[in-house]
């Protein structure tokens, strides 16, 4: 027999973690057969905590796909304001890849980056320029006279490098950490 408090705690934890609406029946099945009724009651107690109440910012929602916890819609103004002001500086994977290309292939132009990544880099270049990780260092004297990009001092400082020469070549990476990082990464998930 599962203790009632434990049941409630487990159900609440699951609702909290889930990214998708959850099926009630599936939630109840988590416990032993014969505990179904107790589980239904426990779930009701948990949901009771998330009925709309003035001081509560989270509530339980019964949508088509099932049950989930969501923030109260009228609070979205606060959420947006908070995360806009305090968000830590983030780098998207696209920006990181572009930065890596510039670091290893500098001086390099926008069209050349486009060729390597297969994606137009304008937006990402702006982000990197704003973060002062790269700079424009002139134009290439070819058709269209595109800007030429290089990494900055801030870039070196961020990655703990004294000079560009210290940027480790790919071969060193493979010597140090093995040649198939992605395969190995999944190896550890077993």
């Amino acid at each position, binding site marked *: 027999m599962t203790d009632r408090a434990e049941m409630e705690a487990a159900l609440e*934890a699951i609702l*909290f*973690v*889930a*990214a998708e609406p959850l099926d009630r029946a599936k939630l109840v099945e988590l416990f032993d057969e014969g505990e179904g009724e107790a589980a239904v009651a426990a779930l009701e107690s948990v949901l009771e905590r998330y009925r709309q109440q003035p001081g509560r910012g989270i509530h339980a929602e019964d949508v088509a796909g099932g049950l989930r916890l969501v*923030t109260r*819609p009228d609070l*979205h103004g606060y*959420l*947006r304001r908070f*995360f806009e002001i305090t968000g*830590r*500086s*983030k*780098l*998207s*994977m*696209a920006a*990181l*890849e572009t*930065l*890596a*290309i510039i*670091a*290893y292939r500098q001086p390099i132009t926008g069209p050349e980056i486009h060729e*390597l*990544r*297969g994606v137009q880099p304008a937006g990402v270049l702006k982000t990197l320029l704003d*973060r002062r990780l790269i700079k424009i260092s002139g134009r290439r004297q070819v058709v269209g006279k595109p800007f030429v990009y290089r990494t900055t001092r801030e870039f070196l400082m*961020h*990655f*703990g*490098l004294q000079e560009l020469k210290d*940027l*480790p070549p*790919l071969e060193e*990476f493979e010597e140090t*950490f093995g040649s198939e*990082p*992605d*395969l190995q*990464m*999944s*190896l550890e*998930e*077993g």
Partner: protein
Amino acid sequence: MTPAAGSLPESWRVHLPIFEGPLDLLLQLVRVNKVEIAQIEVAVVCDQFHEYLGLMEEMNLDIAAEYIYEAALLIHLKSKMLLPRPRTEDGEPAEDPREELVKRLLEYRRLKDASHSLAELHSLRVGVWTRRPQRLPDAEQPATLDLEEVSLFDLLKAFREVLVRYDHDHPEPYHMSRETYSVREQFERLLAALEGGRPFDLLADLRRRRSRGEIVAAFLAVLEAARMHLVRMHQSEGGELVLYRTTRELRSHELEAVQI
């Protein structure tokens, strides 16, 4: 080797303990001999160390180079201990030859103890879950890294990724010959073969393929699947590469992103 003082515990012959490295073994030997690290008896420990390596050999275990290196150091140290210790100019005895070893063992033990506290904390904390990533209201958020935490490792990985993808998107001309093989097709075939937790012998499968183009497509499909963490790989003792399906589910946009 004197059987009384210098022997390994009898139980080690029945069940040979495995250590985290030569220092770990040395630490255990000090413990077995019931002496303080500072009083380590080099001759005894040296013999026991070699005896341990002998047992490993008997059991056909690979002996890592680090053990052999340490064993050589111990022999060297043992011989130094046999020489009379010279005196320095002011008549003091010269440094005890064991000093370096003792320092290393003390530092190692200190950090090993610390790793036990971390291990305890780890087994508790591994049970802590946060919310799964979800979208903020009104904001599509692509996967991002905390800029402050982005390091050279990430930069290198990203660059590799670009090069691999570039090669993948710009295959050598011979891949383009009349018989073309779709990576996505191979990808779907692979996932189907792994359905229900069945293991998949990668090399055997590749050997059965008819052409180089097909092998390339099949292999790229495996790389794609690994990159998406849909499969994990295990190398058997016989050298086969066996793939297993992970519990991660394939999202439809991911499938669409796989090259046709």
